[in-house]
């Protein structure tokens, strides 16, 4: 085997996506949960770029750019929200943030 088939890239993307989901489900520090979401978006970007290679188009790469901007905007807003939550509650444990549970 001399060259890597593109499908391996797509499988890598699926693995990273699944790891992101796992982090989202299992981690309890809000910041880590949020980083897991970033991992999911990165996985999506890899599959966009892989498809762009397959199709010999630059378009898929441009989609990855847009996803990057969305991730940046989401991170800026999300971290600001995390700051306010921390200020009011002094914790980052997701299961301790439950003042709305009945």
């Amino acid at each position, binding site marked *: 085997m001399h060259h890597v088939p593109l499908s391996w890239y*797509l499988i890598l993307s699926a693995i990273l*996506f699944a790891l*992101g*989901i796992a982090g*989202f489900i299992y981690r309890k520090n*809000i910041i880590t*949960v*949020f980083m897991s*979401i970033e991992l*999911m*978006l990165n*996985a*999506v970007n890899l*599959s*966009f770029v*892989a*498809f762009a290679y*397959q*199709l010999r*188009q630059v*378009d*898929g790469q441009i*989609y990855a750019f*847009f*996803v990057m901007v*969305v991730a940046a*905007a*989401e991170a800026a*807003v*999300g971290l600001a*929200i*995390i700051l*306010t*939550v921390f200020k*009011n*509650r002094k914790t980052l444990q997701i299961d301790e*943030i*439950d*003042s*709305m549970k*009945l």
Partner: protein
Amino acid sequence: MPVFTGSDMLTLLPAIVMCLFACGTLVLDVMGRRIPRGRRWLMLFGLCGLAITGVSLWRQWSALAAGGLSQYTGAQGAVTLDGLGFFSNALVLGATVLLFLTSYRFLEITREHSGEYYSLALFAQAGMYFMATASELITLFLGLELTSISFYILVGFTRVDRRSNEAALKYLLLGAVSSGFILYGFSLLYGIAGSTELADISSAVSGRGASDPFVVVAVVTIVAGLLFKISAVPFHMWAPDAYDGAPTPVTGHLSVASKVASFAVILRLLPMTLGSVRSLWEPLLIVAAVASMTVGSIAALTQHRLKRLFAYSSIAHAGYILLGIIAGTQMGLRGVYVYLIVYALMNLGAFTVLTALHRHGIAGEDLHDLRGLSTTRPVHAALFVVLLLSLAGMPPTAGFLAKYYIFTALIETRHYALAVIAAAYVVVSLYFYFRLVREMYMRPAETREPLAASLGIRLSLYATAALTLFIGVFPEPVLRLGFRISGVGQ
């Protein structure tokens, strides 16, 4: 070199107006600190922007009608003007107008009044414009994110309120994950079709058929993400918390505008684009619809916080609207449109009442805050009863009509089991809406503090309640208009 033509301009005009006025509000806010009663001007400036947006939407519609076109695609194939888009945008526009009218007093009381609020609402509306009109996945996704991110901020807008922070956090974390799922599905669709244009995707997917596992994965991830956006079970966990913690006018807006726009996305993606693989997504929607009606109606029975109760009620309503998509016929589609109009009216009206309950020193978010409303504010109480009857689907209100369309469509398409289940939950929902009426009419008042009142709140309450009754009694004119805008025929 392709150039930006006049017709491109026309397709984007409402969004451009919204963004310009949103920026204008920001500039006015920081530059006009010294203007006396400047905050009132902020709201009026925003309303002015909404009026111009309305005019530009109407210009688009009449230009399309003058050309005898049913749809027009512009801006390098990114945006399509059609009935669905006009319908959703008109409804969202109305919801934003009511948001502005009801927010003023609320923001004064919570001391959070600033231009950012109106600006973000306008940006969210621009996002919803793209959600409703995008004919290409990337524009659709950016519209979705524009809306979501604006709403994350609006939900957390009352920073000192711990509930508001937490609501924003939960909404953000779950919203971001659902965006990730939708995006993963989009990347697979791009791989299948080699393009993000919905038309290309439609033909590529129908070429591969419903048995292609690639299509299956793409459809499942996209449907899961979209069900989250309309807060259908099993992706509803965020809704009660986000609704409860958000500032009340924002909750109303979130439950109406973002849901209407998300349904527009669902209609465009599922029946219109992925219609050829209906057998894939229909079962998913059936499960989600039944589960939403069940969880929404039953969980609402035990809630004592008003906004949580309405969160569960709106989860149940999402289930009913999904039924119309499941039926899939012309009748079902009309049912979806009628239901969306009526749902918008009655929910906005109900949240106006909840907004008025929020006074100095009284959060007004609990069931017992309604006590004695019939004696302290008989008019408010009576109108609230009308809205509640409509939410429960009782004649002679508009809610009955909406459910009537859905049930007729279900029976036409022989979905008898679904119709029976839906009817059973109408009975359940009667009970939890009745609890509100009981608090208002059968319990003595706990406080004499008058309700928060302003011209805007009164206007929006009277308008929504009156329209709810009017549509229930004389459905013809409004429905005819709705069908004409959305282009589903008579």
